[in-house]
Structures are given as C-alpha cells and as structure tokens.
C-alpha cells in the first residue's frame, strides 16, 4: 500500500482522466404573501444553494466550482399572487469544461402569479475556453404580473476567446408568448464570433422588461459597446448590448436605473407603440 502524503503530489497526478459523472440537482423556491407578509420557502439541492437575503430577496450560491461539463442543474421558482421576488447571485458563474460528458446545463423556470413581480439579475456568466453551456430561463407571467430580467454572458476570462454558449429566454404573459429568444455564441467558432455573430465582442448583455406599461426605446453606441431596444408584441421590450464586459455592464446599469426611475415618476420612458 502506498501512503498518500497530502500536498506532496500535484492534485490529480497519477489518476486516470476518466469521464466524471456530472452533478444533478434540482432546487425549488416559493414566495407567497401570507397575511400581507412575504414568506419564502425553498429546498436546497447542492450545489444549487439558495440563501434568503431579504424579506423578498434570495441569493443563489454555487456550492461547488463550475458548473462543469456534464452537470445538470435546475431551479423552479413560484411567485404567488401580488408577491415579488428579487433573485441575485453571490458571485459570477464560471462555466468550465471539466471531464463530464456533454455540456453543462442550467435551467430555470419562474411562474409569477397575478400582480406578482420577478426581478432576476444574477452576476455575469463566464464561459471559459473549451466549456459548453446550455441554459434556459422560462418565465410564465399571469395577468398583471411583471418581470425584469438581466443577464450578462462573457466569453472567456480576460484575454481568452471563450467556449460555447446557448441560452434560451422565453416569456409568456397571460397565456400569450411575449418573447422566445435564443442566443448562440462560441468564442472558438470563426463564424459565430465573426461579423455575423458576436463580432469579436466578449460580452453580451440582455435586459428584459415584461408586463411593463412603459419602457425605453432606441439604440446607441458608447465606446466599447453597441445596444438596441426591441419592443415586443405585447407590454414589454428587450435590450441587447454587445461589446466589452465593462461597457456592456454600464449600459445595463444605465437602462436598469432608467426603468427603476420611471417606476417612480413615470415620465422618462416612451409609451409602447401598440397601446
């Protein structure tokens, strides 16, 4: 028998690089109004760890590195009538290749009851070189419900090209589809990262406002980023921003602030064209 001295050999030395079984975990969370007060209930499913950090706020915490290739992780959220939930994450999501079979998967579904509100804005997702990430967020809004969804995908760490990403964002409002949007990126694919794709940009930001009476319009360009708002076939609009991570973040911050302010004074934003 060979004694193993901790720290003596590099981690993983001598071990065969066999495919590893990915992690499978499904977490769930419900927020409701009980006697006018919010109540959050949830299940942990490591490594998808949920921590309430406010009366109507929860932070997602990665209880392990990754996600890695082969991981299949999901979250099911239900927001009761007139309740609201703010979802954030503790840190950025670093998607890495690992030794698992197939891509890493992260799927979230959120059902929002009448008059409820979802504010979904996790920290950025970084898809590192050679990693593959398949992700979806499906939001079902009942009549009078609303949502603000913010996502930022970064291809690779600083100075790298990044891996493959396929993200689906689907929203229905009162039974009618409002948005079905898929973003396909691959830093190592010359076509997808070329002029017809991400155009050499490392970051792609999305901001969706759904069920909102008023929303920003237009398009623009700042150093390091270009963006455009698209009105949806229903109450809402989606902002896409493409460029450097810092500049895209600034555009998303600015847009989110504009939306938050309009909720207070209602004067900043354009009225939707279809109303």
């Amino acid at each position, binding site marked *: 028998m060979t004694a193993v001295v901790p720290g003596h050999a590099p981690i993983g030395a001598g071990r065969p690089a066999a495919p590893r079984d990915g992690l499978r975990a499904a977490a769930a969370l419900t927020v409701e109004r009980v006697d006018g007060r919010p109540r*959050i209930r949830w299940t942990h499913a490591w490594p998808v760890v949920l921590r309430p950090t406010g009366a109507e706020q929860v932070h997602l915490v*990665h209880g392990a590195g990754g996600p890695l290739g082969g991981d299949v992780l999901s979250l099911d959220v239900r927001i009761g009538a007139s309740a609201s939930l703010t979802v954030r994450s503790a840190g950025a999501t670093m998607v890495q290749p690992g030794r698992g079979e197939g891509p890493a998967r992260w799927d979230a579904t959120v059902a929002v009851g009448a008059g409820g509100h979802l504010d979904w804005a996790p920290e950025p997702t970084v898809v590192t070189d050679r990693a593959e990430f398949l992700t979806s967020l499906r939001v079902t809004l009942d009549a009078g419900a609303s949502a603000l969804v913010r996502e930022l995908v970064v291809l690779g760490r600083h100075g790298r090209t990044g891996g493959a990403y396929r993200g689906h964002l689907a929203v229905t409002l009162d039974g009618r589809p409002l948005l079905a949007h898929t973003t396909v990126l691959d830093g190592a694919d010359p076509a997808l990262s070329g002029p017809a794709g991400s155009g050499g940009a490392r970051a792609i930001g999305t901001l969706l406002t759904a069920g909102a009476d008023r929303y920003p319009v237009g398009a623009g360009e700042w150093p390091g980023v270009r963006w455009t708002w698209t009105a949806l076939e229903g109450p809402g609009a989606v902002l896409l921003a493409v460029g450097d991570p810092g500049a895209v973040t600034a555009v998303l911050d600015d847009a989110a602030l504009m939306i938050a302010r309009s909720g207070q004074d209602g004067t900043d934003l354009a009225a939707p064209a279809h109303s």
Partner: protein
Amino acid sequence: MHRDDLMAAHTHAPLAAGPAGPLRVGIGGPVGGGKTALVAALCRALRDELSLAVVTNDIYTEEDAEFLRRHGVLPDDRIRAVRTGCCPHTAIRDDITANLDAVEALEARHNPDLVLVESGGDNLTATFSYGLVHAQIFVLDVAGGDKVPRKGGPGVTRSDLLVINKIDLAPLVGADLEVMRVDAEKVREGRPTVLVSLREQPDAAPIVEWITAQVRARRA
C-alpha cells in the same frame, strides 16, 4: 416527496428588525494593512451608540477574532470567526454560506445595528459579494508602496470606501502620499478615499463618520 413538503424544511420569515435589518459592512484588503486594527477602532468608537457584531475570516486559525476578544473591544459572544480553509475571497465572494451563517447567528442573538465582516488578508481583486454585505471598505497601507492605488483591481476601484492606512510611515518607506491620493481619485471615479494612520489616530474619525452615515441611510 411532494414539493411543498420538502420546502417546509426551509422557511424564511422576515427578520424581527424588519426587512432592512442591520447594516453589514465588509472590510477587505491585503495582509497586514490594518483591517483588524480598523475593526477594533470602529468597535471602540461605535459600541456605546450602536449595537455591534463582528465576523472575522482566517484561513486556518481564529487569530483575528482572538485579537479582538483579547483587546476586549466587544463582548466575546458578539465576535464570531469563520475558518475559510481556502483562499479568503472564496468565502466572501463565491460560497458565502459560512459567513452568512455567522452573520445570521449574530443577528438572531443580538439584533445589532451594524455587523462588520472582516475578510482574511487577500489581494487587490478580493471583493465581497453584495449578498453578504451592503457596503465594503478596502484597506491598503502606505508600506505596500505608493503605486498600489494605480494598479487598481476591484478592491481598489470598486470598494465603497478606500482606506490608505499607515501614512505616518510614508517618509520611512519613500512613499508619496500625494501620488497615492491622486491615483486613487483617478481609478475610483468619485468614490471616497481616506488617508489615515490608525496608530496616530486610533479613533479612526473619518471612517467612523462614513460608517455612521451609512447606518443612518439604512435606517431611513
């Protein structure tokens, strides 16, 4: 098991202090810059007017918590130590659960107005998750060299307050305080910076003033 039965295991009711709860302030920065000295100074200055609690982070030990207990800056049970067992920034920025456990235990027991979370000494990129704290202070010292603010990194550029400590050592280590002040101003885009010597100014007055304003803003 049914979804609702599973969820009965974890139910979150709003804190007694109301949805706002206490202000949580993270204190980070490189090893030896004066984070623990700052925590001690803040406790001495604020403990008579505010209910305080402290969480410290060290890799393997409870050194910083023991320092604070030994100096009697707060009752022992208002100080909790987290042993990260790993790079300190992992425990304050990524998997924040151990720190949240410590903070929530202190909140449940003492209902404090202010919780200080001291990071283990780390590098210029170490920042706190805003799931753990509401505001963060980054502590540098002059002896680390006057080029440090210029180097930037999220700790220097994004912290809510940058403290440059040990200004009394500037002539001894050949550091130019004006260079540090101007560089910090440039990279921080209007966020405040304080130059101080906690040894010569143990009341930490400018930092106390900043933190008091934060507590007041949270209560409002």
